[in-house]
Structures are given as structure tokens and as C-alpha cells.
């Protein structure tokens, strides 16, 4: 559900949602809790990838683990070269672990990150899960 807040027409919304720069895009969950904030311009595919990360986060925070895993997997598949792809690999693994309570779901993640995103901070974060 999209809401447009132009600085000249809805200045109060900037204060209400702590928007201090434009463009700013928020993804809120159905209860109005912020789950993603994008500040500044992004190229089209990077923007789409980040938006989908926001929707995946909404699903994750609502404990819809299968939906979240599917959404993170879609980011990895559709936007493998985006800046958020390694983060999506990480959270895809976490979502699977949450869904199954099987810790081996995390064991594959370091290798997946090392293979394509070795320089990302998410590869470092997944290191403790290495076999």
C-alpha cells in the first residue's frame, strides 16, 4: 500500500516519521512498525532489491519463516549482483533455521557466502556457523 508524502504538502509526516532527507522510503509492517528505511537515490534494480528485502523483513518479524525464506531467496535469485544479495543469503539461512529448528540449515550459509560474496560483512557474520 503506497503513501506519498511531499515536503510541501505533508511536512508534518517528515517530522512524524523522522524523514530528514529526500528521497526517503520506508517499509512499515501492517501495524505501522518500520522495517526498512532507504535514504537517498538508488538505481532501479538496487532499489527493487532493497524493497524486497523490506518485505522479507516484514515476513520475518511476523514469524512467517517460510514466506521470509522464499522472499530472501527471491532477492538472491533476481538480484544476485545487488549490494543486499549477501544479506539475503544470510537471512535466507536464518529463516530456514527458524522454520525447521535444524541448526544444519545455518551450516551451509558460510560456504554460500564465501563462494560469491567473500568480501561482504555477512560472510564474516556467518563464520561462526562454519563446520
Amino acid at each position, binding site marked *: 500500500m503506497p503513501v506519498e508524502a*511531499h515536503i510541501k504538502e505533508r511536512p508534518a509526516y517528515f517530522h512524524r516519521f523522522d524523514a530528514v532527507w*529526500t528521497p*526517503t*522510503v*520506508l*517499509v512499515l509492517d*501492517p501495524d505501522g512498525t518500520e522495517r526498512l528505511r532507504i535514504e537517498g537515490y538508488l538505481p532501479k534494480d538496487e532499489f527493487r532489491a532493497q524493497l524486497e528485502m523490506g518485505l522479507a523483513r516484514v515476513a520475518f518479524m511476523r514469524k512467517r519463516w517460510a514466506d521470509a525464506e522464499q522472499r530472501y531467496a527471491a532477492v538472491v535469485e533476481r538480484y544476485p549482483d545487488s549490494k543486499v544479495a549477501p544479506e539475503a543469503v544470510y537471512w535466507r539461512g536464518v529463516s530456514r533455521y527458524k522454520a525447521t529448528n535444524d541448526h544444519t540449515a545455518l551450516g551451509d550459509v558460510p560456504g554460500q557466502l564465501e563462494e560469491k560474496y567473500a568480501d561482504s560483512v555477512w560472510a564474516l557474520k556467518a563464520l561462526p556457523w562454519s563446520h
Partner: protein
Amino acid sequence: MAVQWNTDADAALAEAKATKKPLLVDFSAAPA
């Protein structure tokens, strides 16, 4: 497909809650 933008955040928040759908809010200063 054209996006149907809402400019009333409170109405959109109420609808999001009722329909259990997430909300996207776009803050802009671009010329109309």
C-alpha cells in the same frame, strides 16, 4: 500498471492494519 498513491498516512495505516498488508511511504521533495 499505475500506482494508486495515497496521501493520507492515517487512512493508509488503518487500511494496512485491517488488510494485514505492509505499507510503503515515499518522502519526496521533487517538483510535481
